[in-house]
Structure formats: C-alpha cells, structure tokens
C-alpha cells in the first residue's frame, strides 16, 4: 500500500513540475538548470539519515561518501545559481554595480 501512496506523490509532483517549469523564460534556463540541480541534491537528506551510530564499517563509509557528494551538489548548486542570478539586471539597475 505504501508503494501506491508514494507513486501517487511521484505522479502529482511530476505534473506540478511540468506546470512550473514551462513558465520559465529561456533567459533563465541556465540558472533554472543549476538551481534545480541543487534541488536534486535532496538525496543529502537520505544520506544524512543513513549515517547512524549503529551502521558499521562499509555502510558508514558509503553513507559518509554520499553525504560528501550530495553536499557538494547542494551547496555548490545554490551558491553558483545565486551568483548567476545576481548578475541579471534590468536596464535602470544596470549601472549600480
């Protein structure tokens, strides 16, 4: 039953994603990509939860490695997106920098 419930969530989220993303203008496609990329680092949540005190050797190693990679993805992704979006300015804001 849980599988059905999870699949429900999955399907609805896919449709929501289609709706949201089709409204993004092509000017913002690169930030969209790096921003959504950062969101896909959500595996970090799972990775964190898998590093338990009772997990032994190899499992702890896999979990920690997953944490490292996912953190790079999340932190790097959001930071670089923010850096890009900072640069997008309208005409009258253009000279402020």
């Amino acid at each position, binding site marked *: 039953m849980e599988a059905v419930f999870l699949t429900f969530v999955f399907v609805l989220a896919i449709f929501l994603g289609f709706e*949201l993303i089709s409204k993004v203008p092509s000017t913002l496609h690169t930030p969209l*990509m790096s921003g959504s990329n950062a969101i896909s680092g*959500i595996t970090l949540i799972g990775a964190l939860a898998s590093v338990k005190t009772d997990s032994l050797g190899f499992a702890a190693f896999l979990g920690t490695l997953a944490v490292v990679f996912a*953190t790079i993805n999340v932190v790097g992704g959001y930071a670089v997106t923010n850096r890009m979006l900072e640069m997008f300015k309208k005409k009258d804001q253009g000279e402020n920098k």
Partner: protein
Amino acid sequence: MNLGVLGINFAYVGSAALFIFGLKMLSSPATARKGNLLSALGMLLAIVVTLLSHGLDYRWIIIGMCIGGGIGLFAAYKVEMTSMPEMVALFNGFGGISSLLLAWGEFHQHPEMSVFLAAVAFLSAFIGGMTFTGSMVAFGKLSGKISQQAVIFKGQHLINGAILVAALAAALIFSLTPASWVGYLFFVVIVLVALGFGVTSTIPIGGADMPVVISLLNSYSGLAACAAGFVISNNILIVAGALVGASGIILTKIMCKAMNRSLANVLFSGFGTTTAAATGGDGPQGEIRPATAEDVYYILEAADSVAFVPGYGLAVAQAQHVVRELGDLLEANDTEVSYAIHPVAGRMPGHMNVLLAEANVPYDQLVEMDDINPRMDTIDVCVVIGANDVVNPAALDDENSPIYGMPIIETHRARTVIVLKRSMNPGFAGIQNALFFGENSRMYFGDAKASIQALVAEFKGSD
C-alpha cells in the same frame, strides 16, 4: 509513528512547498534570485530537521558536510561564467553518485528487500551511476579535457543495447534474491554496468549537442533522487526529485525542438561526424566580402538598429564584456541595440544569457529568436559573433542540408550582416554557410574579442 518522526515529516512538507515557490519565482528575472534563496531555505529546513532525528552518527556527518560544503563553495565562487556548463555537469554528476551510494548503503544495511524495494534500489543505483559517469564525460568534453567530437565506434548501438539488456537481466536476478550473496554480486554488477553505460552513451554525442545532454542528465539526476526516495520511503526526495526530473525533461524537449531533431537522433546519430563526411567539399560557394575594422565602424555608425547574435565563439573568446562596451557606445550614438539569442546557442540552455548578464547587459535587451525574426527586415545591421549553424539559411531552404528544418535566427534578412569569424572553417555540423556569401554580408575576420576591441577603439577615436 512517534511525535518526533511526525514533526520531521511535517517539516518536509514545508520544504517541498518552499521548493515549489522557489521554482515558481524563477519564472521572472526580477524574482528569480529570491526564488533561489527560498528553495535554498527549503533545503536548509529539510537538512536541519533531519539532523534532529535519533541515532545519527554526527562525527561522520560533520566531516562529510564540511568537506562537501567546502568543495562546493570553493568551486561555485571560483568558476568563470564561461565555464558554467561544465560546472553544472560536474555538480549534476555528484548528485547522481550520491543517489547510487545512498541506494547501495541502504541495501547493504537492509538486504531483506521486497521485490518493489529491490526494483527501485536498482533504478536508483543504475540511473545515479549513469548520471555520474555521463556527467563526467560531459564535463570532460565541455572543458576540453577530452575531444568534443562525437566518438563513434562500430556496433555502438549494439553494445549500448547489450549493456541495457545485461543491466535489466542483472536487475531481475537481484530483485528476486536481494538477500543472498548472488543478489549482492549482481548489485555490484549493476553498479559497474551503470558506470560503464554512462560513458558509452554520452561519448558519441558531439559538442554542440551538449545543451540536450546536460538537460537530460539534469533530468536523470532528479529521477535518481526520486528512486532513492522510494527506497527509503521518503516523500521529500520523491517530490524534489520529480520536480527536477520534470524540469530536465522540459528543457530537453525545448532544446531538441530548437534543433528540429528528435531526442533519439541527438542521442544516437553522432551528428557532425557522418554529415561532415557526406557533404564535405561541396555546399554553397561564392565570393566573400571581407571587411576591416574601419569598414565595420562606418556601417555600425550609420545604423539605426543593431542586433548582436552571439554563439559559442563568444564564450570561447571571452568577448562578452567588449560586446557590451560596443553596445553602450552604439546606444550613445542613438542606435537601438538588442541581442538576439538562439535557444541552443552555446553549450547549455541559456548559456549566452548568463554571459551577457555577467557583462551587465540588461535582460530586457535580450531578445528571443521568435521575437526578432518577424522584425528582422527592419534591422539595419546584424552582428554575428561566433555563431554559425544557428544563422545558416540552409536550414530554411536546402532540403539536403543536415540541419534542414532547424529554426534559425534569420540574419540574412537584415539589411547588412557582419559576421565575426576566425577563419572560413565550417561550424560544428561541418556545413558551409550560405550566409557568408550573401550580397548583404561582410566578413570581419579575427579573434572576436580583438575584433570588437578594434571597433571600440574606432568609436572612441572618432569622438
């Protein structure tokens, strides 16, 4: 479900809402930055509440997060805007591998999986693995560490097909007996096959098709996260992964449409190697009209409207800042300046927009292909900078051309076209460009940055 776990799950609902709002705000450049911060806040919330759960081994977590965070921040602030495509590819790959590792770790700790769980664990590991190596290949190609050419070998499709069949077979055996040593063995096989498949499926794709590949890998990384969410029954992974998966699919579709090719064609055809051989030598010929910096200056000086059409060459030459300077000088001269951007110009979706934004070009001056084409006849001068196939009129009128049917920026309809180019070498697709021989075309040879600097100097000298 005790109170703590319930609280954590409600907090996840909050983060999902923040992700959704964040993506929604990305639909306008004015709110986009705030949107990204909201999304980051959602992520932070999810991380913090996860850390509150019981029984976590904080030593490893802190070490892992410090290393990852340090590398991520360092890379994000050090990267050049022109190198953004490879950076995104790299981050993307890391997302993929973490899904693989997560699935592996979960399987290692709880090998007694139901068939459903085993199947999603397979998906998570397989998609994650191929995302990782695929992204690494894309990174290598984009950063020039490996050849940008499509690498084709005999029986490529056969080998890729065989790999997929092998993966599915291994998945079947693994799903039926995950808890035995056979199951474990086959899980490792799946991981290796996935890593190999990422390489063999990405290597045949050439440089100019990278926008499609990056979008697709982006989608994969989301779907891998999603599958990992099924493995650990975590809704936030499923929701966030699905959002990213959907976004990648849409971008892939847009990119394919902008090249008038099907996804299958991009993935399997090895475009650029076969066509170059087929059409090499012939194609449009004619007289070209070279121009000097002074000639171009007089043309631009007399123009009422100028549209710049940038391509990958702009990124290679790092010419975005001088282009902006030239644009400013033209505006000071009462010329209407715009920047016409083809959806697949550059190496990733929106690549040109980011470069021009870096050079402080206001985003309201950036015009999309569909907006500029109808009024192309009224534009005095089009300046094509390092773009080739996206302005090739053969796409409109030559049915034999490999790019026939691809929408282009119709610069040949402008009163004058100035093409900045290093030499007469054909572009990525290996097709000669009739634009260069047009009556209204002038070729301005040289490095894009040096050429534009020369123009800027002409303008300043005349004051």
